[in-house]
């Protein structure tokens, strides 16, 4: 494989060898194999391809083999308690394909036999319940599209620009359509006693992770989901059932859900004390910071998705979301936040779901400092990183929803930078 000038550049390769390879595998119009291009007739036009059902479960084209979840090995001690990231820079629209939804496990992927899985509801209820998956499916169904973001998404960026690619800076998020049962339906069936104010939700994996959830949220819009994007949950997303807590941090969305206990106080489990508390500069930590504030990111151009066409008509594509409702507007800056231009929202704008935005312009080929800024329907405006750090310092790990800056260079390469 010969390397072009730009591909031998460090900053370009810093997005991963696989990405560079992908660019070679999918060359710009000028590359490829001339024998397959007009006026010639390519191989695939001359002979029959595979027939139906040869691929009983379809997969993306082999030319898309680099569109995969990736992990950052130095981040954690073991892959069983770790995270992989959604390749946001390769995706469009608002729905994340099931196989690309980021993973976060605390004890590896539990391979649960649905015949043996049980969901138990007990504690401060009139009638404790135990359900099989088949029984859960007999309850009335709801379908909802929601984003799920890990509270530690962008956590590596608190001290400055660290990772070159929105897959790594923002990839702990996905958005799918869930089918399941409203948690309210099940709680009403069990009959919550008047002193039942909190739920303990717990998974069946090797970590049996447990979290406290206030009853108000449980009765508002939580779902026990068994389908994602129409098919059964994937094992790495909690097959056969998971909790969906719209707009709130992903850690609460317990996978392989096995137990819901109703109590009158929070439990203060390890996940909501030692983790998922936000350390402030004064040494105090915020607890129960459940909701995910409004946030946005430009997915292309971005470090893993450089501009390959040179100057001319250019599309800026990105995602915006809010855990507190719908996206109201998104603005894009080309000069690092000095001036802003309204972006165009395209596709559905849903409550607590990803929203796709576009900003189209004629690029004159000069370097850019690209940013996006969302405002949600509550009026909340996504803050700059400087504004966030002023209040929170740099040691809170979680809830970094600051404005991201991509430096687009004259040659179209893009890097993750900080500006001031």
């Amino acid at each position, binding site marked *: 494989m010969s390397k072009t000038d730009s591909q031998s550049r460090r900053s370009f390769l810093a997005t991963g060898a696989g990405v560079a390879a992908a660019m070679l595998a999918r060359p710009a119009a000028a590359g490829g194999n001339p024998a397959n291009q007009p006026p010639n007739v390519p191989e695939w036009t001359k002979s029959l391809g595979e027939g139906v059902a040869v691929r009983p479960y379809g997969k993306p084209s082999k030319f898309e083999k680099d569109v995969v979840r990736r992990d950052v090995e130095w981040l954690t001690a073991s892959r069983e308690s770790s995270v992989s990231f959604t390749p946001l820079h390769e995706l469009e629209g608002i729905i994340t394909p099931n196989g690309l939804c980021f993973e976060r496990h605390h004890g590896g992927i539990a391979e649960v036999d649905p015949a043996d899985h049980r969901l138990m509801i007990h504690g401060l209820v009139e009638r404790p*319940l135990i359900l099989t998956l088949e029984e859960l499916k007999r309850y009335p169904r709801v379908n909802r599209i929601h984003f799920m973001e890990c509270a530690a998404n962008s956590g590596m960026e608190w001290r400055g620009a660290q990772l070159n690619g929105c897959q790594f800076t923002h990839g702990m998020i996905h958005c799918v359509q869930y089918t399941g049962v409203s948690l309210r339906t099940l709680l009403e069936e069990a009959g919550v006693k008047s002193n039942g104010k909190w739920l303990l939700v717990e998974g069946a994996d090797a970590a049996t*992770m447990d979290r406290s959830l206030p009853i108000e949220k449980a009765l508002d819009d939580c779902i026990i989901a068994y389908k994602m994007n129409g098919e059964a949950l994937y094992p790495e997303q909690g097959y056969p059932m998971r909790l969906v807590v719209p707009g709130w941090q992903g850690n609460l969305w317990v996978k392989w859900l096995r137990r819901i*206990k109703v109590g009158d106080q929070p439990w203060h489990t390890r996940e909501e004390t030692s983790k998922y508390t936000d350390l402030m500069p004064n040494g105090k930590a915020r607890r*129960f910071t459940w909701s995910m504030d409004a946030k946005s990111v430009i997915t292309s151009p971005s470090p893993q998705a450089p501009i390959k066409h040179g100057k001319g008509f250019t599309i800026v594509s990105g995602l915006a979301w809010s855990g507190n409702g719908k996206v109201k507007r998104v603005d894009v800056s080309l000069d690092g936040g000095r001036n802003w231009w309204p972006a165009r929202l395209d596709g559905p704008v849903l409550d607590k779901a990803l929203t796709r935005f576009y900003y189209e312009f004629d690029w004159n080929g000069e370097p850019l400092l690209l940013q996006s800024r969302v405002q949600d329907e509550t*009026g909340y405006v996504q803050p700059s990183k400087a504004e966030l750090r002023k209040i929170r310092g740099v040691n809170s790990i979680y809830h970094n929803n600051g404005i991201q800056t991509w430096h687009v260079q004259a040659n179209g390469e893009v890097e993750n*930078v900080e500006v001031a």
Partner: protein
Amino acid sequence: MSKSLKLIAVALTACALSAPAVSQQKVDAKGGPRYHIGRVPTADEIRGWDIDVRPDGQGLPEGKGTVAEGEKLFMDNCSSCHGEFGEGNGRWPVLAGGKGSLTSDNPVKTVGSYWPYASTVFDYVRHAMPYGNTGSLSVDEYYALVAYVLYLNDVITDQNFELNKKTLATIKMPNEQGFVMDDRATSEKSFWQKDPCMKDCIAPVKITGRAAAIDVTPEDGKEKKSRGVE
């Protein structure tokens, strides 16, 4: 109103403030059964899974263990990841130390320096440890292990201290008062605006930091090291 109920009231107010989307409907899930799908679990079925523990001691099982007993168990089951003194190996969690570090540039959050309640240690260890061999120890052994971890953190100072249902619920952790409810709705009020600025919002900016200079983005066949987040 008891202290704990007050806390919940505060918690729920804060929750309502930080999540305006949560409806203020009257909380009432009394309903009564409508669908009659599923059955009532047996007491045995509930007992097998009902392993959670609260700060007030609710949920703690009958049993006991001492620091001295816990030391041997810790060496056999825990020290390969956490280090013999809870100092942590590699990227595995540090369990002890970090006292007074929470306001420093490099806070070390351990059971002693950060965790607000001792019950959490018992709940977590019984839920998830030993890593990869969850629930393989007896209740007495879990009490002993928790006693040793608390000893490593100077929360328990007597090697012969017996940790049990009664004594664990009386332990006060050094950082219990180190937590505040989510106050984003007030402390970050300035982030709610009517109309975001569009023109000449700030002075022209310069690049002050570059990810490429730090060079820790994953790349096939290269070792990378940086500050992580667990």
